[in-house]
């Protein structure tokens, strides 16, 4: 896993933009020192920078979006929670002997309303990343998440989940403690809850590790977030037998928000500030909060049985196949 390497803060495709911004700063500095008026030039250059930023960010490839989604400065679960909510209290522990720092959760007020929030938590720096296992949760993390969801259900609080993980942790201890079972059980239990569940892919949605807190009434994704069945790197090494083909795999797997909207998987695409959520985190948080509140209002109008039925039917519809209908079929009691 490449997660151990410290990634550059400037992405390749952002380079021309960063260069231009540097140039603007240098001119401004020189003008200040020499007392020359360069307002007009600066304005021109800034207009160009804005245009360039727009161009770059509206035509991102799947691989580039993957880079944005994994950007070390991209707002994390705790960043959003702390920005959006009041009275936040993080709650710890799976009550089975552990507290997985890679999956955090707690209670808070969202626009006055008590809610339970949780999500994968990547580190904010290298040390933090090690403690949080780069956002790759262990079985205990999924069990903690379930415990918090059950708590929410018991007290009629909506469940808000944030997805941001390269995948569930793949290690000996995770296998021994039943990583598969932990995720599977969450998938099943999430269909049972009477309270609204809103899931948002804020960064990287990595496979089963993402889905483990991803079964809800409404799936939202930020514009540059990705959600994938297998990491493009893993997919490339299996299907292309060459991990170097991960760019091709990223395109082929259809991992962007727009793709997933078309496939009928994504319910709500959240626009990001030009330059990505990391360039204006507060703006991204505002969008996220407003959209959660909008969807909550709609979902809370439904009685619990309708809500669960709607949730089931939402997933029930997903999939593409043909059906010739040539085979004999017993009548199913309608």
């Amino acid at each position: 896993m490449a997660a151990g390497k410290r990634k550059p803060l400037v992405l390749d495709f952002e380079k021309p933009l960063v260069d231009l911004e540097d140039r603007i700063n240098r001119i401004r500095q020189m003008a200040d020192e020499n007392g020359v008026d360069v307002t007009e030039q600066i304005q021109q250059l800034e207009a160009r920078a804005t245009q360039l930023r727009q161009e770059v960010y509206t035509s991102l490839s799947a691989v580039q979006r993957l880079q944005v989604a994994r950007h070390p400065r991209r707002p994390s679960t705790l960043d959003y929670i702390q920005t959006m909510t009041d009275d936040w209290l993080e709650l710890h522990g799976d009550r089975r002997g552990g507290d997985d720092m890679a999956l955090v959760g707690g209670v808070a007020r969202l626009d006055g309303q008590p809610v339970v929030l949780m999500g994968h938590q990547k580190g904010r720096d290298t040390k933090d990343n090690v403690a949080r296992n780069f956002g790759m949760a262990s079985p205990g993390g999924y069990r903690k998440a379930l415990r918090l969801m059950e708590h929410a259900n018991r007290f009629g609080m909506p469940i808000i989940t944030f997805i941001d993980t390269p995948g569930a942790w793949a290690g000996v201890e995770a296998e021994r403690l039943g990583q598969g079972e932990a995720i599977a059980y969450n998938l099943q239990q999430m269909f049972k809850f009477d309270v609204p569940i809103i899931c948002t892919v804020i960064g990287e949605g990595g496979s089963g590790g993402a889905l483990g807190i991803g079964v809800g009434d409404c799936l939202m994704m930020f514009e540059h977030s990705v959600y994938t069945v297998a990491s493009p790197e893993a997919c490339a090494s299996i299907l292309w037998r060459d991990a170097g083909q991960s760019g091709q795999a990223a395109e082929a797997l259809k991992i962007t928000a727009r793709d997933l909207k078309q496939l009928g998987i994504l319910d709500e695409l959240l626009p990001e500030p030009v330059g990505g959520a990391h360039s204006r985190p507060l703006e991204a948080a505002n969008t996220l909060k407003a959209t959660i509140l909008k969807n909550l209002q709609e979902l809370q109008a439904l009685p619990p049985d309708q809500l669960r039925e709607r949730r089931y039917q939402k997933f029930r519809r997903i999939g593409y196949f043909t059906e010739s209908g040539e085979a004999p079929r017993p009548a199913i009691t309608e």
Partner: protein
Amino acid sequence: MSLFDWFANRQKVDATAPEPPEREIADGLWTKCEACGVMAYTKDLKANQMVCSNCEHHMRVWSDDRIEQLIDEDTWLPLDTGVAPVDPLGFRDRKAYRDRIKEAQAKSGLVDAVQTGQGEILGEPLVLGVMDFRFMGGSMGSVVGEKLTRAIEHATNQGVAVIILCASGGARMQEGMLSLMQMAKISGALERHRAQGLLYIPVLTHPTTGGVTASFAMLGDLILAEPKAMIGFAGRRVIEQTLREKLPDNFQTAEYLLANGFVDAIVPRTQLKKTLSQLINMHRRPESKVAVGSATGHNGTGSELAGNPSQPFNESLNGSASMP
């Protein structure tokens, strides 16, 4: 997938085994056990459900064999055989997904990687799903998800148990996120089945990995496994790469899961039919109840079970609903 390693580990050739004539090996009259190397008369081996009588090694069998081994004669009615795969993403790796589908279909004679149907096991009615590793490694895409979901819904409507024989490398990457979402879809259907107080038993066979392990393989009321089956969430190689160390030999085997509390029992293939029928029978409620409402109806707790007089199964199937 470390299938090769798995087989390699088990190759302890028994030098004392008699060598049958080469011609007969070529004709398939004899089959060599991959584990102990002993030659067995293929007919005998088949009669023993492809379990080596020398070392108890469970050789690969396919979905047709499984159905034949488990289901009472003349009770099998396949479900949703017309559901066939498409290529929703226009996926192409070294080969186009469309071509992979055609090849797998031609090679296996299957439409996709699962067969579903209803039938009886020693007189016990049930809905059965059998995954088939021959078809693209038993991978789960839209068809596997849809067929299993429909089978579970059918069982919920009929008020019968579900058994799924798992054999899968995980989610089918060629259908991208559609495959991942099948995990949730099937789990949701199982939740509804469970809410009606009905029994679900997955049987984990070699190999059961990835997305299948992280969904319906681990959601049984009871979970059975075949001896020595490889069962795990993450690939062995992935873990080895992360840790840079060799893993213990029994890692991710049925026995390892049993020891760690994730499997109820390891059942040899030759005992599976009897065990399943006994379990289904034991878990039948005093008065067989058929759920009211359709698959799309309200799904709540077990308290909503209708107290209908028992009409345990589609009567047109077997004429009578005879219970032992």
